[in-house]
């Protein structure tokens, strides 16, 4: 476990720190803060971290700890108030094609079949080619929905809809995947199964993944690193390294070593969690 550098907000030192950030980091943040418009709510304060290529990072914490804010900053959906944020060495100022996002709700378009939903990101960039279509069908096979590629979202169960959303995320071609409680609305069994599949799939495509959840066990089970976040003001309290080998099986969650890490995270979050 290593404590993140608590940034006091002086621009010059932050600048140096940003330049000094690990050269190969996919996502690098120094003193990243976000204050919402009315000036009273500090959603995120002084976040500094480096995320290595291909790693899986979980963001865990109670509501109001800024985990969704952090994700939306990286996605370029909202602007930072201060600090530095780079993805692939370039500052983030707008949504980018190398960063993709998935939400708690599948947000599929009801009037499009599964495969047409998967093709949406490409359609927004340019006109479709035969190759795009083959790729989309292949992605639906990867998430186990090849037989349902012409079904409409309302004909699919909640878990299946999230699989389509995952395929759509992969279709963007982004290598930084941001997942905001993607399976939060699903039942326990479906969620566990999808988590295992998610690990397999992101390993297969070699993407760097940030995964938001408020479930501690889930956060640890999936990740190489867990960012433990606390509210008021939202900040990264600690970064916990997860030592377990991959591939991991669900039975890992019952081992004493696993529970030790859970206890460690719980300790940082304090007694109100």
């Amino acid at each position: 476990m290593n404590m993140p550098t608590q940034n006091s907000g002086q621009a010059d030192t932050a600048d140096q720190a940003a330049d000094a950030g690990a050269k190969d980091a996919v996502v690098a943040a120094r003193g990243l803060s976000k204050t919402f418009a009315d000036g009273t709510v500090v959603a995120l304060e002084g976040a500094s971290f480096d995320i290595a290529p291909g790693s899986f990072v979980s963001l865990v914490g109670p509501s109001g700890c800024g985990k969704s804010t952090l994700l939306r900053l990286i996605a370029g959906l909202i602007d930072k108030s201060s600090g530095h944020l780079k993805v692939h060495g370039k500052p983030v100022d707008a949504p980018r094609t190398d960063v993709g996002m998935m939400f708690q709700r599948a947000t599929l378009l009801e009037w499009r079949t599964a495969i047409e939903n998967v093709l949406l990101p490409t359609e927004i960039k340019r006109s479709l080619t035969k190759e795009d279509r083959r790729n989309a069908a292949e992605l639906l096979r990867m998430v186990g929905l090849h037989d349902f590629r012409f079904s409409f979202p309302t004909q699919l169960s909640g878990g299946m809809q999230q699989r389509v959303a995952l395929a759509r995320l992969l279709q963007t071609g982004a290598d930084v995947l941001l997942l905001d409680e993607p399976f939060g609305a699903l039942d326990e069994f479906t969620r566990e199964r999808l988590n295992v599949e998610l690990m397999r799939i992101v390993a297969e495509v070699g993407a760097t993944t940030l995964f938001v959840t408020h479930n501690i066990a889930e956060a640890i089970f999936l990740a190489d690193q867990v960012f433990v976040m606390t509210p008021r003001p939202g900040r990264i309290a600690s970064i916990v390294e997860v030592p377990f080998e991959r591939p991991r099986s669900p039975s890992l969650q019952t081992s004493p070593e696993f529970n030790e890490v859970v206890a460690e995270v719980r300790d940082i979050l304090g007694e109100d969690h």
Partner: protein
Amino acid sequence: MSDRRSSSYALAYWALRALPHLLLLLALLPVWELAVSTGFITSILVPPPSEIIASIWELYVLDGTIYPHFLITLTETVAGFAIGAAVAITLAVCSALSETFKRYVSPYAIVLNVTPGIALTPVVIAWFGYGMGSKVALAAIISFFPIFVNALTGLLQVDRDSEEMFRSLGASDRQAFLKLRVPASLPLVFAGLKIGLTTALIGAVVAEFAQATAGVGVLMNRFSFQLDMGSSIATLLSMTLIGLLLFYAMEFLDDRVVFWRREGRRSVVSRARARRWAAKFGGHESPETEAASSK
């Protein structure tokens, strides 16, 4: 699954469902007839069924007097509705695209809404004459608002998460409007169109009551003033028919366009798209994939 067999099943099912209704109606008719002939109900208020049936026979079969009037009212309604809907949807799209436009147009739309459109009947007749023009105009005026307000609500009410998803994909405003807002608004647009159609019919008929030379409203007025209640009700029936005809035409369109809200249509469209995909891009396997029902 054979479509023909399932449709004949459906027919039998409906016949079975309709049977008790028909029996009840047949049982009620003699009671009604008897009640009038014994003077239990005054025949001026409610004519006996025999008289209504005789009038229907005369108006619809023997003389066929009703048909030209029927066609005129139908034309007025459809024309008025088309004009009202075109203006309403154009203004709704402009209002949805431009905040400024919406701000400066909405007060007039609100004034138009709280004014009963029917109140304009005499004025519209003075402006557009005794012919079909004034009926079309009134139908257009009173069908405008429900369509406008539904279309605008539909276009403005957009799912925040979907909007954010589009932004994260780097979609332009134009793309988000065409690919997200417009399709998402269609169910409400059609709800508005259905209400607008009903009000357009009311507009046409009321304008005919006020002053006209032809149309079912004129016929209705004439028969009522002659105290010929049987023929009046027979005429009323054709207004119901126009209403039903237009409603089901709109329902049919709604079914085709907003297919994703209709369980039956959804799987049909799903299969059709699979076939089209296979024909255009080739499928390495059979596209006949059955849609899963959501659990």
